[in-house]
């Protein structure tokens, strides 16, 4: 039986010049070294520079430019940040020094820990006001380097990237809508391959750090775009191929698609729940910048009789990022199962999981749109602030060739009205793409009962989209939770 694979009609690795650079043995390093230099600059300025967030390269570059550009890259190409991630450089050093570590515990080889780390990271961001602290932003970057180094020294299988890193978790989820994906150029070549170097590595190049096997790759989940598979393949049979964004979310079994190759998003509670948490976290994160959240925090504070911001944030985040998506997702799956009971044969103990894992991931395009709307707001409102901040940094270090007065009035690249219009357009596009993906996920079940099974998810995605429009229509505030 033939395995499913996207047809590599366009292969980035075959683009003259760029393809050769990407496949070059040190190709990843070309992208990582500038990011390493940037990380060093962030640490230096964060610890030593002005401790006002709008005047420090650490806070401006991390909270404005990184977050905006990483989503643009995911939308236009793919997981380019993981490709150029500087944190993997000391990790690779640790791997070389320590050799093959022990296997990551089997009980943790899933996304539950990653979901927890992702929510914890968002909670820390608010609880510690990371967005307002250059020094804490610098320590966050240092912490990333240390965590990646230690975990790689202790374990094989790049557990930091695959099972913990909140940034990687975000990128893996959002990469579902990316237009590029790793695939095999010819399945026949893979079948005849003895060494499976793409995953096992070769004498010169490491194999896939997250242990993906190229001919079985049907999604961007867990793919860091490191391209080690392409470099390791002795048959030059790996493509970075163009595909329809979000297509990986709705592959259904068929004659050419055995169940194991249907989708990395299918039949797994953890990855389906990750998709929901990703979308709800995006909305909660944006909601956290609007007046109602301060009223909610004040109400909780009165109920609890204490103004413990960390605790109140934990309650709000736990409710909106974990409990609500779990309850609504399981509720939708239960309703979907009931409404679709007339089709698809017998009930089984797996039916709830089937409904949940089949349809929940279709929220990702809407989720990406919500995150994009938020980060795009910050990026479009303040992209140019990096110019006076960098100018000021240079002046502090004796570089005066650009003048003696930074132009602090530089900031937005779009007017407020245009930013709002692009935010609405992104939300509309994300919502429609989620609906289209939902419809594709149900392809082949065109019975009335099959169509009814979609209704709970249609209602849930619509409610989420409406909530997003309301949140982004509210005036944004930039302050701590409890003033």
């Amino acid at each position, binding site marked *: 039986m033939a395995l499913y694979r996207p047809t590599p009609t366009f292969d980035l690795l075959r683009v003259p010049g760029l393809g050769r650079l990407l496949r070059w043995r040190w190709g990843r390093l070309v992208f990582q070294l500038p990011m390493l230099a940037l990380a060093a600059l962030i640490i230096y300025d964060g610890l030593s520079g*002005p401790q006002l967030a709008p005047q420090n390269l650490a806070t401006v570059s991390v909270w404005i430019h990184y977050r905006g550009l990483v989503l643009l890259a995911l939308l236009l190409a793919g997981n380019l940040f993981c490709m150029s991630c500087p944190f993997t450089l000391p990790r690779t050093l640790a791997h070389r020094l320590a050799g093959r570590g022990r296997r990551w515990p089997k009980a943790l080889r899933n996304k539950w820990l990653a979901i927890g780390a992702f929510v914890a990271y968002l909670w820390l961001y608010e609880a510690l006001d990371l967005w307002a602290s250059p020094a804490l932003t610098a320590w966050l970057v240092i912490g990333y380097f240390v965590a990646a180094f230690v975990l790689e020294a202790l374990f094989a299988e790049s557990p930091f990237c695959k099972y913990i890193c909140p940034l990687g978790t975000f990128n893996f989820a959002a990469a579902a809508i990316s237009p590029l994906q790793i695939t095999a150029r010819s399945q026949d070549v893979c079948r005849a391959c003895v060494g499976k170097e793409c995953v096992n590595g070769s004498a010169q190049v490491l194999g896939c750090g997250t242990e993906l096997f190229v001919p079985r790759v049907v999604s961007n989940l867990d793919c860091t775009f490191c391209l080690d598979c392409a470099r390791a393949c002795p048959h030059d049979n790996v493509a970075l191929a163009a595909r329809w964004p979000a297509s990986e979310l709705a592959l259904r079994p068929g004659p050419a698609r055995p169940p194991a190759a249907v989708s990395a998003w299918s039949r797994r509670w953890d990855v389906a729940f990750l998709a929901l948490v990703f979308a709800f976290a995006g909305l909660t994160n944006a909601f956290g910048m609007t007046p109602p959240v301060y009223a909610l925090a004040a109400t909780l504070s009165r109920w609890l009789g204490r103004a413990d911001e960390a605790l109140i944030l934990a309650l709000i985040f736990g409710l909106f990022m974990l409990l609500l998506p779990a309850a609504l997702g399981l509720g939708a799956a239960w309703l979907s199962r009931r409404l679709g009971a007339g089709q698809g044969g017998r009930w089984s103990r797996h039916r709830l999981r089937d409904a949940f894992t089949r349809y929940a991931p279709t929220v990702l395009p809407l989720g990406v749109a919500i995150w994009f709307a938020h980060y795009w707001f910050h990026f479009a409102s303040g992209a140019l*602030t990096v110019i006076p901040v960098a100018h000021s940094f240079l002046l*502090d270090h004796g570089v005066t060739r650009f003048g003696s007065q930074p132009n602090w009035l530089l900031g937005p690249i779009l007017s407020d009205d245009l930013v709002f219009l692009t935010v609405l357009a992104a939300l509309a596009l994300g919502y429609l793409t989620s609906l289209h993906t939902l419809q594709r996920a149900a392809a082949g079940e065109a019975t009335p009962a099959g169509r009814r099974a979609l209704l709970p998810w249609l209602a849930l995605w619509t409610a989420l989209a409406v909530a997003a429009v309301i949140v982004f229509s509210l005036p944004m505030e930039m302050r701590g939770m409890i003033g």
Partner: protein
Amino acid sequence: MNWFPHRSAAWRLGWAALALAILLCAAGCQRTSQQQPADQAPELAAELTVDPTPPRVGPATLLVRLSDASGAPVEGAGISLKGDMSHAGMAPVLAETSGGAGGLYQATWHWSMAGDWFVTVTATLADGRTLVRRFDLTVAGS
């Protein structure tokens, strides 16, 4: 592949990276920014009054009152105001004050967004010294 056929080379690289990091931190701790001049007149008092109070998004008037240790007004200063939000990526609000009679300086202002603001008052005094004070404010939505 063996990047480091002799492990000592790897250790040297590791120690070099560690030393570089320590140096960066040490150098960083000593840095002073030319954009934030030091306060040279700690004995003077500066008071910031905002109208309307509490501050709300929109136009406003900022009043700075300078006085010495005895409470006598300090006149003849040139004062610039800079308002920064606590979040990165927001362009600051800048203004110069007018007046100064009776130690009272006034500036027209515009709060561009609700949230936490830091208003930095930088005064060049008649004797050439610089006074710097920072005031933290929370601006409500309009």
